[in-house]
């Protein structure tokens, strides 16, 4: 096999991995704080993409600037979904939470279908036409920008959680809800903010890929499933696991597309998932068995 081809696949995998990491970090944050799995995660991502499209078409805002606004709007969506719906099932059985979020996913996906139609779309951005050559390898400037922004957002989220007072409250509520309540943390508000941040992460991820990844309302499901895979492979509730898992899955898929065939690349992440569930169900960075 041509080493240039493998190098290129590796590079593409790393560049796309930033987005996977951002998606998975959002999911992992929500799960880590309130033990709820956001089955509408991918559909929230698709809404980030469509919002980027609307901003680009109506306000001529490039998605690489518009992502900030998309993240803000998705924060609101996430916060509302949490306050109105998720908050009522935080203490219910997993099954009920999953069904509720599936309901939200169905509503989000099909609302997009009714408004925007089923055809695949892409947001125009001048960055998509630019490339840089690194010796024999080429770097797509749009993908590079996406990678840099996604990694920057992930690091910013990490610093927010580690260094600031609200971040500390979120971690406290995640570690020990009762203890946090005792020391005066407003846990319901922390839940709402955490869900909002998780949705904002995936919304930003959606806007950031909207310029080079064609999307349609039905794309949400596979994005959700990919996020779940990454988070389980990395370890549920671990942000570091989600971050590394995102990069690992993206690289594996990219190499899989070269060695197997492009249509089989999804199989790679599922095979990784099955292997992880077989040998290390807590995930690469997880501390305990589920």
């Amino acid at each position, binding site marked *: 096999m041509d080493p240039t081809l493998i190098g290129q696949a590796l590079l593409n995998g790393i560049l796309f991995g930033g987005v996977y990491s951002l998606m998975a970090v959002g999911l992992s944050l929500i799960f880590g704080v309130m033990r709820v799995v956001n089955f509408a995660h991918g559909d929230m991502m698709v809404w980030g993409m469509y919002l980027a499209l609307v901003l680009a078409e109506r306000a001529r805002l490039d998605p690489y600037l518009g992502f900030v606004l998309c993240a803000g709007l998705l924060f609101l969506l996430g916060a509302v979904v949490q306050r109105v719906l998720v908050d009522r099932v935080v203490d219910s059985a*997993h099954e009920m939470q999953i069904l*509720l979020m599936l*309901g939200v*996913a*169905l*509503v989000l*996906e099909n609302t997009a279908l009714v408004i925007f139609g089923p055809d695949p779309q892409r947001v125009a951005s001048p960055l998509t036409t630019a490339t840089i050559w690194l010796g024999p390898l080429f770097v797509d400037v749009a993908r590079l920008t996406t990678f840099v922004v996604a990694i920057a957002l992930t690091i910013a989220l990490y610093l927010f959680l580690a260094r600031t007072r609200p971040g500390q409250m979120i971690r406290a509520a995640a570690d020990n809800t009762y203890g946090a309540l005792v020391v005066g943390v407003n846990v319901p508000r922390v839940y709402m903010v955490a869900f909002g941040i998780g949705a904002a992460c995936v919304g930003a991820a959606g806007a950031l890929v909207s310029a080079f990844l064609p999307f349609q309302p039905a794309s949400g499901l596979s994005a959700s499933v990919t996020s779940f895979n990454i988070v*389980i492979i990395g370890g549920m509730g671990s942000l570091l696991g989600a971050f590394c898992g995102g990069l690992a899955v993206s690289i594996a898929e990219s190499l899989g597309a070269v060695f197997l065939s492009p249509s089989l690349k999804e199989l790679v992440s*599922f095979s990784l998932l099955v292997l992880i569930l077989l040998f290390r*169900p807590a995930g690469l960075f997880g501390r305990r068995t589920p």
Partner: protein
Amino acid sequence: MRWAGLVLVALLLALPAILSSYAITIFIVIFFYAFLGQAWNIVGGYAGQLSIGHAAFVGVGAYTAAILARDTGLTPWVGMFVGGACAAALGTVIGYLGFRFGLRGFYFALLTVAFAEIARIVTANLEATGGALGLYITFTGDPRQFQFSSNLPHYYIALALMLVATGVAGGIERRRLGAYLAAIRDDEAASEALGVNSFRYKMIAIVISAFLTGMGGTFYAFYFLSLQPNTVFGVPFSVEIALRAIVGGSGTLLGPILGSFLLTPLAEFSRAYFATGGWTGVHLIAYGLLLIVVVLFLPQGVYPYLRRLVGEGQRS
């Protein structure tokens, strides 16, 4: 209760005499989904292991029977059981992987989704299965090929499938297995402490459920006559199956049937109504809202709610 059931069955047997051909097709779909919901109910309801991948069993059963009929001329009447066995084998693999570590809730649900997706991707990439374009069965109307010139036989077959699955679920409910499964569902650690081998009983539940669902695949293939990997293995189909049982009342014998009688006509009519107006997707929004409402206000499902209502009426 038993008499009411017999009267109901007699009624359903006689019903086609007064139904239009279109109404019969609606009833066929109602029975078929009630059957799938009941099969799901064995592992998803009684054993409490939420599966969102039951479409994989339908798909494996459907493709097995269809390919056997096409390549070896094996009649689907036999292929049905081969398909069921293949689905049961897949169920064994999923169950072994999942239950060995006691994966619960989200983990198990995702494992089932993952296997359905693997099956979908593999099927869409194999030449023998017709690839992404799908597999089409030519209509012959030959009863040996599970095809009939009128839809009456399919009505009775679907009804029979529903009754068989309900009989199996009822049998489980009345026997020790049902009691073990209920104990595992309510508190797995406590039932283990009492000596219930939860791995073993959960395996039995998923294998029975997968076998029945796989048999349903033959009906799917030779009634609809077309198999597309994205539809037959898709997550939306899995959700539709689980939804019937959950809305009706999962873990109850009549729940999946009631759920199908409520949801299937709703789905069929709203699909026909909105799709003709160019509003594809609206019926799925309604579905999503319904799911949310059921979780928030009727978490046990409609059947237990009705029974409580009736119980209160009798007491007062």
